[in-house]
C-alpha cells in the first residue's frame, strides 16, 4: 500500500525536512521523492509506503494538511490507486 504526498506552493527553507519528519513520526517509509523549484514555486511529489503506518491514514492526512496550513502550502496525501486507476489501463 502506497500513498502519494504532493506539496505545492511558495518555496521556503525546510519543507522537505518537515514533510519527511511527519512521515518518520507516523512510520511512513519514503520510497521516492521528486522535487522542483520553478520561479519560486515549489512542487514535490513523494511516494510513501503506508503498510507500517503507526496511526490511521486519516491521522497522517490531517497532520500533513495542518502542516500545509501552517506553511501556506497545498499538501495532499492520496492513496496511489486513484492515480493508477485514472491514468493507466
Amino acid at each position, binding site marked *: 500500500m502506497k500513498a502519494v504526498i504532493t506539496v505545492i506552493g511558495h518555496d521556503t527553507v525546510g519543507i522537505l525536512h518537515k514533510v519527511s519528519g511527519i512521515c518518520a513520526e507516523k512510520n511512513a517509509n519514503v520510497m521516492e521523492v521528486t522535487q522542483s523549484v520553478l520561479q519560486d514555486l515549489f512542487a514535490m511529489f513523494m511516494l510513501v509506503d503506508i503498510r507500517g503506518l503507526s496511526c490511521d491514514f486519516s491521522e497522517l492526512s490531517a497532520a500533513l494538511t495542518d502542516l500545509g496550513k501552517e506553511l501556506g502550502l497545498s499538501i495532499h496525501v*492520496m492513496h496511489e490507486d486513484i*492515480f493508477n486507476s485514472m491514468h493507466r489501463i
Partner: protein
Amino acid sequence: MLNTSDILETIRMIQDECLDIRTITMGISLLDCCSEDMDALCTRVYDKITRKAEKLVAAGQQIETEYGIPIINKRISITPAAMLVGATRGGDPVKLAYALQRAAEATGVNFIGGYSALVHKGFSAGDEALIRSIPQALAETSNLCSSVNVGSTKAGINMDAVRLMGEIVRESAELTADNQCFGPAKIVVFCNAPEDNPFMAGAFHGPGEPDCEVHVGVSGPGVVRAAIEKYPDATIDELANVIKRTAFKITRMGQLVGTRASQMLGVPFGIVDLSLAPTPAVGDSVAHILEGMGLSVCGMHGTTAALALLNDAVKKGGVMASSSVGGLSGAFIPVSEDAGMIDAANAGVLSLEKLEAMTAVCSVGLDMIVIPGDTPASTISAIIADEAAIGMVNSKTTAVRVIPAIGKKEGEQLDFGGLFGTGPVMPVRRESAEKFIARGGRIPAPMQSLKN
C-alpha cells in the same frame, strides 16, 4: 514513480474543477420484510436497513480520506415500497414512510429512495394506496424520496397513472407550500425507470436486483468543461474524443470507489452510473459545457445537437472504464441545480419546449423545473404524458420532476438550497389538456416493443 503531470491533473480535477463522487448508494431488498401487519412490516424494514447500512456512512468517509476525493452523498435505495404495502392487510402507508425516515436518521444517510410504485401497465394491490399517500409522506419526512413508473416501451403508458400523478404532484406542492413547495422536488415520474439507479429522487432497488449491493454515481461537468476549453478550435469529432478521454478518467475513479466500498461493506458491487450531474456551484454546470462548445446561451438552436454529442461521448468514454455500467448514465439537465441552466431560463432563452427536445437525446427528462402555481393538475399530467411518450418510443428512460410554485408566477423563484438550487418559475402553456387526460386508459406499447 507515477507521472507528475498525471498527479497534478487528478488534483486539479478535484480542487479546481469540482470533480467528486456524487453518491455511494446502497441498494437493499426489503422483500423478506413483508408482513400482513403494517406495524410488523415497519419494524422489520427499520431493522434490516439499519443492519445492512450500519457502516455505509463510515465507509464513505474512510474512502474520502484515503483517496482524497469528496463523496457528496451517502444514500440508500429500497425495494419499491408499494410491493411491501401490497402484502399487508391494509393500514396507512405513511407509517412505512416514518420507519424509512427513522432508518435514514439512524444510519446517517442523506437520502433514502424507493417510496415508489411500478404501475406502467396497471395498479396492483398497494400501488394506489401508496401513490395517494406520497404527498403526506413527503411533507412529513425530510430524507425520503419517491418515484412512480408510469410507462415503458414494453407496456405502453398507463394514462390513469399519468392522470393521478398530475394530481399527486400538485397536492404535494400544496402540502409543502410553506417550505418552498419542496415536496415535488422529491417525486420523479418515470418512463422506463432503471432498477439500479443511484441518483435521487428516482432511486429504488428493483425486484431483479440482489439482496444488497452498492452503486456509485460519479459527477464532473466542471472537468469536462475545463477539458473542452483547452481546445477552442477543435472540430466536433475532436471534441468528442476529448470528452471521451475525460469521461474515461472520471469513471475509472467511480469504479475504484465502488470496488473499494464493496470490499469494505462486504456486499457486491452493483454499477457505476456514468452521469454528468451538475450542482448549483460555480464551474459545475452541464449548460456551461454546451456553452463551452460554442453556443452563446444554453437553450438556443444547436443545444440539442451539442447535448447529443456530449451524452454519447460520455457513455463511450465511460463504458470501457467500468466493469458494470447502469442507472441513468448520461448528462443530467436539472434546471434549478445547474447555474448555467438557471441563467438561461432567467434570460428567457431556455424554454420548457427546448428542454423537452433535449430530453430526447440525454439521460433523463424534465428535471427540477419550477412551473407557475396555478398550473392545473391536468397540465402537469400532460407534461408527464409527453415526456413518457418520448421515453416509450425511443426505448430510453425519461422522467418528470416539476415543482408547482404555489402562489407564485412567472418572474418569481423558489429557493431550495443545497444541491437542489434555485428555480425560476418557467412559463407553461395555458391551453387545456383536461379532456385528453380525463379519458384515462392506456397508450398501447409501440411497434418498438415487438422485438422478440
